[in-house]
């Protein structure tokens, strides 16, 4: 790398450390003592580790180097945006998915939507910056308790530097019937480097459905390092949908750390339509008997995009089940990485764990790396994994084409069927319909990430149109 680029990368680390030091100092009187300690420890860890390199196993295939060499403005001052402007920017049919919408704009809770939302049933949604002060007794027992990832510099950086994020709390025995939609929108003239920190706490036997969207409008460089800690108490159930549709210049790194109690249920469904570099780490700790985790995902990549999904599920106790399913279609020069890791601890007997990664590779220039790992220390278990890389079934193609459907549409039908397995698992009917459509557009190349966010360009009224080649009939 050129010296200049090297310098930029080194400066970035120094700028961040300087910023963190400044913040810690500035807040030394106002910030909670427990948080200050966490920040200081994390700062030291980040200083020691520096940004991850390809020498680390978890980053072997995901090289941040060229991205870190871009200029980022770590102290960028955000556009001041009113709620109505943001809504215009989103052009959001906010209720399209029939959800309650909370938007973070350029890493900050949007004006007009700030403050605390408390539902009648006791459910709280509020910005993290506020939650750590007014709900300290709810936040402290969980904050930083799950995002333990020794040696991961970005986790440390996030803890040390985060400013904002969301805090969601559902009390015991509350089934929150409104779905929450957390939109994380980047639209800045600056090259943003944002660390965002979220915490979701589900009380015993509670229920929540969330949709987390990462979108961007601008074409500027941005680096988002997002950590979500999730605590799911005994008997609780969380459905988490993640939709990522970023521009090609952006780096999005999301880490989700989940700890589950007995008989709890966690279902995560990640749909990645676009992004420059997307890395999703999901770490689930099944810590109570009878807990179940379903972590599924879909990625559709082209251009020079890179998507890296890491899923790590630990079966710490007996009688838990887990299921991983990731499917992807990789086109042009794109590169996809899947790393699934199921760890069954010594006494976690009667474990059922499945792991599957299926890929369709469309070009010679694209790359697919998949590592489905099993690490098992108990004997009474049933664990399996599978991984495939292949193409569309030629026999199926032939069958469809001989029915008079042109090659392009036949391909489309097969690809839709391939991704259907993931999309059909979406329980929100509106979201499912919208996803089917978005994916259809995406596969036809009609959904571009560059100019508008997905929500903007989704046109629900326009059905996917299959052209039938009449000459073949």
């Amino acid at each position: 790398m050129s010296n200049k680029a090297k310098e930029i990368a080194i400066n970035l680390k120094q700028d961040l450390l300087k910023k963190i030091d400044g913040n810690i100092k500035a807040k030394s009187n106002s910030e909670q003592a427990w948080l200050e300690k966490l920040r200081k420890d994390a700062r030291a860890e980040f200083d020691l580790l520096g940004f991850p390199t390809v020498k680390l196993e978890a980053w072997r295939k995901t090289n941040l180097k060229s991205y870190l060499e871009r200029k980022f403005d770590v102290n960028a001052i955000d556009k001041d945006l009113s709620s109505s402007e943001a809504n215009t920017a989103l052009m959001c049919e906010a209720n399209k998915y029939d959800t309650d919408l909370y938007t973070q704009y350029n890493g900050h809770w949007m004006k007009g939507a700030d403050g605390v939302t408390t539902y009648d049933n006791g459910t709280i949604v509020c910005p993290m910056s506020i939650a750590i002060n007014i709900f300290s007794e709810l936040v402290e027992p969980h904050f930083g308790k799950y995002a333990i990832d020794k040696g991961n510099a970005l986790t440390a950086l996030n803890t040390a530097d985060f400013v904002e994020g969301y805090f969601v709390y559902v009390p015991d025995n509350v089934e929150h019937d409104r779905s929450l939609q957390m939109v994380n929108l980047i639209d800045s003239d600056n090259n943003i480097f944002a660390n965002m920190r979220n915490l979701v706490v589900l009380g015993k036997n509670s229920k929540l459905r969330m949709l987390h969207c990462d979108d961007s409008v601008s074409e500027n460089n941005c680096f988002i390092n997002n950590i979500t800690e999730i605590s799911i108490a005994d008997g609780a159930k969380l459905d988490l949908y993640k939709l990522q549709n970023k521009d090609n210049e952006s780096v999005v790194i999301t880490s989700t750390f989940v700890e589950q109690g007995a008989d709890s249920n966690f279902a995560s469904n990640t749909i990645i339509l676009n992004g420059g570099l997307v890395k999703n780490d999901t770490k689930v700790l099944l810590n109570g008997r009878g807990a179940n985790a379903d972590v599924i995902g879909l990625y559709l990549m082209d251009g020079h995009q890179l998507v890296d999904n890491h899923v790590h599920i630990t079966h710490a106790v007996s009688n838990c089940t887990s299921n991983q399913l990731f499917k992807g279609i990789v086109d042009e020069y794109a590169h996809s990485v899947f790393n699934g890791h199921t760890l069954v601890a010594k006494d976690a007997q009667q474990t059922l764990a499945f792991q599957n990664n299926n890929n369709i590779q469309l070009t010679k220039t694209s790359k697919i790396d998949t590592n489905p790992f099993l690490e098992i220390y108990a004997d009474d278990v049933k664990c399996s994994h599978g991984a495939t890389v292949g193409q569309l079934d030629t026999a199926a193609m032939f069958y469809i084409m001989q029915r008079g459907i042109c090659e392009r549409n036949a391909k489309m039908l097969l690809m839709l069927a391939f991704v259907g397995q993931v999309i059909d698992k979406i329980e929100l009917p509106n979201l499912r319909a919208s996803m089917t459509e978005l994916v259809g557009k995406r596969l036809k190349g009609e959904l571009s990430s560059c100019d508008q966010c997905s929500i903007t360009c989704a046109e629900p009224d326009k059905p996917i149109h299959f052209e039938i080649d009449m000459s073949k009939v």
Partner: protein
Amino acid sequence: MAKSEDIIIDEVTSSDYKYGFTTDIESEDIGKGLSEDVVRIISAKKNEPEWLLEFRLKAYRKWLTMEQPDWAHLKISPIDFQEIIFYSAPKKKKELESLDEVDPELLDTFNKLGISLEEQKVLSGVAVDAVIDSVSVKTTFTDVLEKKGIIFMSFSEAVQKYPDLIKKYMGSVVPPSDNYFAALNSAVFSDGSFCYIPKGVRSPVELSTYFRINAANTGQFERTLIVADEGAYVSYLEGCTAPQRDENQLHAAIVEIVTHDNAEVKYSTVQNWYPGDKNGVGGIFNFVTKRGLCKGHHSKISWTQVETGSAVTWKYPSCILKGDHSVGEFYSVAVTNNYQQADTGSKMIHIGKNTKSTIISKGISAGKSHNSYRGLVKVSANADNSRNFSQCDSLLLGSECGAHTFPYIDTANETTVVEHEATTSKISDEQLFYCQQRGLSPEKSIGLIVNGYAKEVLNQLPMEFAAEAQKLLAISLENSVG
């Protein structure tokens, strides 16, 4: 039911190594430690040409700059290379004409292992190049092979007789800088086997070599090179046993195979180095780099291994499928018991068009052992229509052992199909119940099921070897295999 199963597992996991004995043969060594001088001494003792000494020294200097890899799922106590004797040869200098001249004690050792040279010579028609410690003591059937033009001799002999071939192929598949243990081997390799099959020749016999670590505290650094020229075929067998020792012994071997157009090499291993006792004391550290290069089109390399021994196994027989239409195969049964640790698997590197590879790996863990499969399937952008199928199953016997699977699949071609599947489970109660209700004892049932489980791999072994492999499975999982 569970109780009797526990008893059996207990019996299985508490059994001692059956082949623990030492042969008293005078051996000559050069003292402990490793330095540039030691490398020079080894080379001088073997009367090696200058270029080979240079090869060794280069490798040694490279080794000094490298670090012992720690990525494997193994817990290894640090190895003190200054405590190891890097050269040891039985004191036998004169050339032997017939078996009668071989040290009777040595022959006895072979007899104890059930691999009597005479018997094999007469009955099975297998030419045996027996290696005790570091020097090949006896080569048989050379005459028969010579008529066909097949070269099969100890590595050091080949260095003297066929320096051009050695120079051309040595290090061409596993370069000295490949990894830490390959560099070490390249610097201090003591002896091994060399095999060359000329154009269009099918080896009439199965070639085999028995390795055996003998003198105490001796690292054994074998080097095997097999070259199959156009249209040639050979089946090569390797089997190992080692006597009981309390200190860990180091074994870092290199096996290189080159196949030209239309050639085929089938390499079968039964590995039964001393695994340490039931408390995890002693045992061999086995760090092996095995790699084959399918250089020509339509060439084929097939690895079959039955791994039951060693305290630590670090071994990934690989195929580089460079020639178009070349085929790579890997069949493995790895059994670990007591405190054994195995991190083994295969690498299939698809470079040529229409290349095919198959990986079948069966792991069996018992006692407090850990058994990992680690594999790589890599498809380069030019490997059109390449195909891989991998299946890695693990069987757990007992609640304190571990079975792990770490496959890596990297593809960069749109016409390739790669499939990987793996399962981990214990012997199901239904299977056991079914066998037992047919009148089999619990232990026979386990035996039957384990045998059936490993059958897919055992079937790949040559007839002569399959019986021994089954015997080894039986010994490794004492009393549970019928």
